């Protein structure tokens, strides 16, 4: 039997023994579940801060934290203690309530996503039939937190940073939602557990049939978190630190923790929606293996975000907007229109070919995946071609820098 379910059963029986009504016991159990999931997410985050510093150091040919504990493993705890002992300041003229709620909201908006994340086939906070939409909805609290933080700080840099952040977050929500719809379309469900269940084999993984949606989702998620190369939100040279400039001590730590957790959360979501989540070999016999697969895939994606962070330069603000509106959104729209069409026309192709070869269901799957993959590649190539041409046109239209021989007519020597 599932160890967690057994534990829950035991707890309920214990409460029944001290004559508590079953409804109260159920609510207590839910509360404990909430605390456990939130704690797991936060503990992973603490570990991730160490991992990120270590890996960034390796990528940049440094050593990274190595003084506190073995391999510097206790560094995050030392950092947290340092944060806690810092003075907690509130700027004069700040809106106290909004100023204090904003960091909490920033963490909560990320933690809420973990309520629907399936760790294994049995372990999940709740099974919601609109989970994908729910993820998009709770993300909007993060935007709210940024706005509140920027406005309530009574600081021009904070407000400017908040405006910049919100314009980026809202813009990138469009391709994010559009690319979220592709797995929903392919799994015929908005339930995130069903989406994982539909990706049983390697061929069924949505990254195979929809690599473009995978890329779109990943890019716009990274922009949504505001990490390099989309870290314009805290560009020190331009807006000092962005919306959290006035925060100190633990409240600043909350923003940092929220950002780190959000990065791991989007990695986990990418793993769930496109890489099959807890699916893997032998997972039917041993459901606990799902946790290993899920974490492995999540950390693989997380590694890519760390890799990007320690190698890529920051994108310019006009490029940030034009990448979104001129590239990601049109590509996502075209993909969203073509995916159902291709899916519809390849639905029965397997039956057609089954006269020649065996099992029609399997054939349909591979035909469908192949056709979708080709569609994705075609859209990708088309988009690259369009971008190439428009860049070429733009360079041509620009007044060229005068070359030396044109700019200065040769001096006549016979003067």
């Amino acid at each position, binding site marked *: 039997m599932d160890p967690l379910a057994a534990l829950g059963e035991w707890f309920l029986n214990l409460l029944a023994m001290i004559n508590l009504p079953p*409804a*109260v016991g*159920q*609510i207590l159990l839910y509360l404990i579940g909430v605390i456990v999931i939130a704690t797991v997410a936060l503990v992973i985050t603490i570990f991730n801060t160490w991992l990120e510093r270590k890996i960034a150091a390796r990528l940049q040919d440094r050593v990274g934290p190595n003084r506190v504990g073995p391999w510097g493993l206790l560094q995050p705890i030392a950092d947290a203690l340092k944060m806690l002992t810092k003075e907690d300041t509130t700027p004069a*003229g700040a*809106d106290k309530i*909004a100023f204090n709620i904003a960091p909490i909201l920033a963490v909560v908006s990320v933690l809420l996503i973990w309520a629907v994340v399936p760790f294994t086939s049995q372990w999940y906070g709740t099974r*919601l*039939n*609109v989970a994908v*939409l*729910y993820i*998009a*909805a*709770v*993300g*909007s*609290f993060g*935007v*709210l937190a940024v*706005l*509140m933080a920027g*406005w309530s700080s*009574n600081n021009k840099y904070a*407000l400017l940073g908040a*405006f910049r952040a*919100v314009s980026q977050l*809202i813009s990138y*929500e469009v391709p994010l939602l559009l690319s979220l719809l592709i797995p929903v379309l392919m799994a015929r469900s*908005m339930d995130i557990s069903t989406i994982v269940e539909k990706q049983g084999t390697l061929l069924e993984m949505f990254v195979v049939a929809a690599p473009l949606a995978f890329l779109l989702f990943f890019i716009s998620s990274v922009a949504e978190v505001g990490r390099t190369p989309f870290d314009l939100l805290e560009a020190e040279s331009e807006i000092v630190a962005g919306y959290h400039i006035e925060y100190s001590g633990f409240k600043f730590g909350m923003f940092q923790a929220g950002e780190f957790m959000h990065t791991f959360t989007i990695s986990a979501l990418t793993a769930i929606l496109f890489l099959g989540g807890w699916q893997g070999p032998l997972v039917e016999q041993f459901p606990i293996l799902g946790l290993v697969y899920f974490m492995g895939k999540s950390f693989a994606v997380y590694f890519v975000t760390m890799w990007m962070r320690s190698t890529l330069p920051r994108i310019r603000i006009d490029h940030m907007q034009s990448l979104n509106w001129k590239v990601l959104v049109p590509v996502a729209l075209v993909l969203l229109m073509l995916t159902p069409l291709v899916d519809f026309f390849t639905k029965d192709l397997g039956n057609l070919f089954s006269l020649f070869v065996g099992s029609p269901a399997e054939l349909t799957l591979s035909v469908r995946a192949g056709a979708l993959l080709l569609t994705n590649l075609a859209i990708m190539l088309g988009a690259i071609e369009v971008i190439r041409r428009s860049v070429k046109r733009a360079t041509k239209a620009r007044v060229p820098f005068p070359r030396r021989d044109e700019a200065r007519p040769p001096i006549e020597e016979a003067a």
Partner: protein
Amino acid sequence: MTPMQVIFIITAVATVLAAIMVVSRRNLVHAALFLVITLFGVAVNFILLDAPFLAVVQVLVYIGAIAILMIFAVMLTRNIQEDGAGEAFNKNVGMAGLVSFLVLSLLVVTLGGWSEFRALPPVANTSGAVEALGLALASADGYVLAFEVASMLLLGALVGAIFVAWPRKNENE
């Protein structure tokens, strides 16, 4: 009292109190933030009514888009921290109270006469509700006309907004 009723009473009180704060705060940003609480309370009520789809859409559209847009616009348009929301345009308190009272009594009378409002029918199995909603919105027998008209209206609003915001060339000269 079941736990559901306790949750309902807490959210209902919070929702109504926040709604009162929305209309009584002088500071527009505070009013907008209280509006967020009100909208969230409504979303919680949708969940209590076994309509998670509506709840999630409520949060996504009203808090994620509309409330954020309102806060954004309020912050950009005026220096709220100094002057409050400014003076009211007129003082039609009596008129506003009368109209509100009339609307409320109309609602009470019409909804009171509706039998299903008093005794809620038991909630059917909601597992296929989202699919049913989607099919109803897209089928010719359902609400496809209303759906398309609403889409056209929104598209028109978008085009209109772009037209209004577009810089005119002759103004620069």
